[in-house]
């Protein structure tokens, strides 16, 4: 029935004597048949409507076959787009982060400054309201630096000539007298505290009315001098400024008598505890200077000495 051909294919030997056989190759014919059938199926599917009623069967097949590819392309596209967006957002987020950090730092500094100013203002208002009883209050002044060394007690205050500070201006807190301005700069001034060893102020014992001179001892305490041994001064008596030194106004509390010693001399040794808390000086009240100090600053300095 069949014989192997030269090219290895098995060809069929025709058995019909009435037929003129031109070529016999069923495998090639089979391949052509399959090709033709596939073409016919494609042509038929291109005409037949799909089940959903939209398009043809061929379109449905193409869509079904290309769905994974389209999905993959879409995934890759979305991934690429997402990566690009993420990268862009990363860079923008970094710059935004830097900008926000700078803004936050600026806000922090602003907040810190505002809080300090509010605290300063609150302290100044409290000080001014409490110091309403003091004579000639000009305003409150912040204390920038307190210096205590070898009998020198001085302070730097945050006000100067531009703020109306003049040499000899008294400084006080609501509790009592603090000192006076000795050197005036443009924006800051140096003040001599009552505790300084070279500071002095005319004082009066409120209960007895006796006058004396209060001096700093350079160790954080005050002494009241020139009080006669006949005086009836006692511990606890209030001592205030007498207004007789040409520097400090009258009636500002200085302190209370801490101890009275009767020695062999003509005057008593009276130690006075200062009313003002020199360890917590943050703000002081600037008082208007005495008219005598305005006219003769040298004289006032001399009187202080």
């Amino acid at each position, binding site marked *: 029935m069949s014989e192997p051909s030269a090219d290895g294919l098995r060809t*069929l*030997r025709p*058995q*019909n004597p009435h*037929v003129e056989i031109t*070529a016999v190759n069923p495998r090639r014919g089979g391949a052509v048949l399959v090709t*033709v059938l596939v073409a016919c199926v494609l042509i*038929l599917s291109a005409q037949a409507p799909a089940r959903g009623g939209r398009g043809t069967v061929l379109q449905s097949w193409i869509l079904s076959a290309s769905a994974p590819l389209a999905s993959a392309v879409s995934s890759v596209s979305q991934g690429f787009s997402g990566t690009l967006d993420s990268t862009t957002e990363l860079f923008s987020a970094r710059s935004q982060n830097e900008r926000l950090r700078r803004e936050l730092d600026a806000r922090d500094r602003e907040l810190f400054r505002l809080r300090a100013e509010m605290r300063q203002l609150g302290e100044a208002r409290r000080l001014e309201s409490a110091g309403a009883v003091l004579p000639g209050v000009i305003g409150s002044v912040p204390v920038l630096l307190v210096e205590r060394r070898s009998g020198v007690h001085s302070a730097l205050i945050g006000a100067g000539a531009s703020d109306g500070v003049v040499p000899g201006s008294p400084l006080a807190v609501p509790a009592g007298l603090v000192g006076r301005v000795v050197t005036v700069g443009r924006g800051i001034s140096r003040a001599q505290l009552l505790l300084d060893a070279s500071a002095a102020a005319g004082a009066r014992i409120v209960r007895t009315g006796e006058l004396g001179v209060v001096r700093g001892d350079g160790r954080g305490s005050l002494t009241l001098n020139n009080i006669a041994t006949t005086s009836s001064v006692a511990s606890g008596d209030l001592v205030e400024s007498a207004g007789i030194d040409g520097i400090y106004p009258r009636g500002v509390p200085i302190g209370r008598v801490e101890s009275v010693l009767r020695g062999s001399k003509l005057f008593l040794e009276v130690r006075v505890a200062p009313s003002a808390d020199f360890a917590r000086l943050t703000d002081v009240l600037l008082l208007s200077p005495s008219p005598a100090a305005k006219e003769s600053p040298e004289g006032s300095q001399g009187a202080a000495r």
Partner: protein
Amino acid sequence: MKISRIALLLAGAVLLEFFVGGSSHRSLLPVDWFLLATAAVARNGDFVRAVLAGAAAGFLEDALSQPLLGANAFAKAILGFALTLVSVRVVFGGALAVGAALAAASLANEAIVAALSALLMGSPMVVVSRDALWRAAATGIAGGALEAAWAFPWGEWWKRRRLRRLR
């Protein structure tokens, strides 16, 4: 078989289908001329040409008579291959055998077309109908007649007739 002969066969099938199929005698002689042309090519034993001729004949038939282009091409390509296989495997001769084979091929053609229409167009599937049987019978008769006419010794018959007149 040469391509020109195949083309001539297909053209003849088109003309017969066009004129006979469009006439009032269509129901009397519903011969599948394209199947006959395919069978004529297939009996030469060339699978490739039989398949291609069957496909071409089917396309022409679809273009003339079918709304679904390619259904008869599909069927006749298969039948071309099958008829070629029959012609090279067995002794494919004699009017009766050829007629029977063509009738069976016509029924197979109708069944394949009906199946394709049912699958793709959703039309009801009628594999063997009265029309299909009549068409198969007509095709088988026509094919057998043509085979008989082809195998008839016309030359010898003509000589005998001349001798008879001369006597």
